[in-house]
């Protein structure tokens, strides 16, 4: 671990131009880490930790990353430098190959695609979006969930979820009608479907784990 608790570390929150980014730096500030919101490839190139948030539509977010010229630097950081990267909410879906919601390819770092929640055949009708607090059951590789107990709860707000091709990538599961993958992890690359920045002490611990590099490896 090169860094402790964010000191001297450059943390960036990638700004794809949509939605609510201020809440993430506000949360990191509670951990004593000054994160910068940026859409600048140069600034991302020197980052030690990268947070890739996202709300809204899949294609809009991918197109925005393309238009901002960030795909190359993100690929380099993720795949060559292997810097810890955390996709949040739609940012987790972006890690996959694509989404039922759109036509553009995703970043393709995690094998899998996002699909829309399916109504249960046998259960009561599933209201979509999945909105509110729910439990995450970390898998063994879920180092993002260190110090959080067996079933930490987080705030979710989404209609699509990632389906992993390789079960080894699954870092956490949640049930909404049926179980779905709520966190992924592959080496330095992690994704979480929920909003840590709005999940008070639980979210704070996830950020703490991410900054400490617990999920890196």
């Amino acid at each position: 671990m090169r860094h402790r608790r964010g000191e001297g570390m450059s943390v960036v929150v990638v700004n794809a131009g949509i939605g609510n980014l201020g809440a993430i730096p506000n949360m990191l500030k509670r951990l004593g880490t000054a994160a910068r919101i940026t859409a600048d490839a140069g600034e991302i190139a020197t980052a030690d930790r990268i947070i890739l948030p996202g709300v809204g539509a899949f294609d809009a977010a991918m197109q925005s990353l393309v238009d901002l010229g960030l795909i190359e630097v993100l690929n380099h950081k993720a795949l060559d430098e292997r810097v810890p990267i955390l996709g949040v909410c739609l940012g987790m879906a972006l890690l996959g190959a694509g989404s039922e919601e759109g036509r553009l390819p995703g970043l393709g770092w995690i094998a899998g695609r996002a699909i829309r929640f399916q109504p249960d055949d046998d259960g009561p009708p599933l209201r979509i979006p999945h909105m509110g607090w729910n439990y995450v059951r970390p898998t063994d590789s879920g180092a993002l969930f260190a110090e959080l107990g067996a079933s930490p709860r987080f705030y979710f707000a989404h209609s699509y979820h990632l389906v992993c091709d390789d079960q080894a990538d699954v870092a956490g599961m949640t049930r909404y009608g049926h179980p779905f993958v709520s966190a992924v992890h592959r080496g330095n690359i992690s994704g979480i479907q929920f909003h840590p920045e709005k999940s008070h002490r639980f979210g704070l611990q996830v950020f703490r784990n991410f900054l400490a590099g617990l999920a890196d490896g």
Partner: protein
Amino acid sequence: MAEPMSPGADLPEGVPIPRVIPCLLVDDEAMVKTVRFSSPRYLGDPINVINLFNRFEVDEITLLDIGATRRGDPPPFELIERLAAECWVPLAYGGGIRNIEDVRTVLSSGVEKVVLGTVAHDQPELITAAAEVYGAQAVVVSVDVRRTAAGFEVFVECGGRAVGTDPASYAQRAASFGAGEILVVSIDRDGTMEGYDLELIRTVSEAVNVPVIACGGAGERAHLPIPIREAGASAVAAGSIFVFRGPERGVLINYPEREQLEALFA
């Protein structure tokens, strides 16, 4: 790949933990509480109140400016930004939103969701525009309802204008325009603490496939799980019980302990 979902097989049952949402009203930057949408009573400084709820780790907060639309004012952006910066739980804001620029300003200041009321009726295409950019989960449409001689009727402009529609078809229309959530409010029960209007909530939750938040009438903590158990709501919101205590309704910001909530909803 035989059991691709097996890691989650032992997860707690199918629905998320029902949200219990303090619904807070501001008017001219002061926090107030109304009865049947009128006689606002001053409660205190919104920043202090939000900070207390924050500390209680509430599930979510809904903040409504009840004066902005009436005065023709924009949302109080600066106040919203200051509140959002303090808020580490999900925050929804409504009141005075007129167009997509207002939606953008509110959402980019650290708020998760906008609540569209009057504007959702007058310009429903704004629901669609906001949902296309920010996702349906960021767009709540509020449905304020009175019982009249004609049955349930939807009102906008803080109860000031009837729109001539019943809540079920109104909510359906809002969802078809792209609303990700419906906040159904009983004007008759607001501030009365007589309990939720279950018939109203049921008519709306049966009409739509998006989550429904029930609001209006909660008078004791035991009321909170009832709309979820008996009327199909996904979440409950309440004002009075979280800001008043005792028969004299002294101002006391409060929220159930987590264990208490779990027992209530068990």
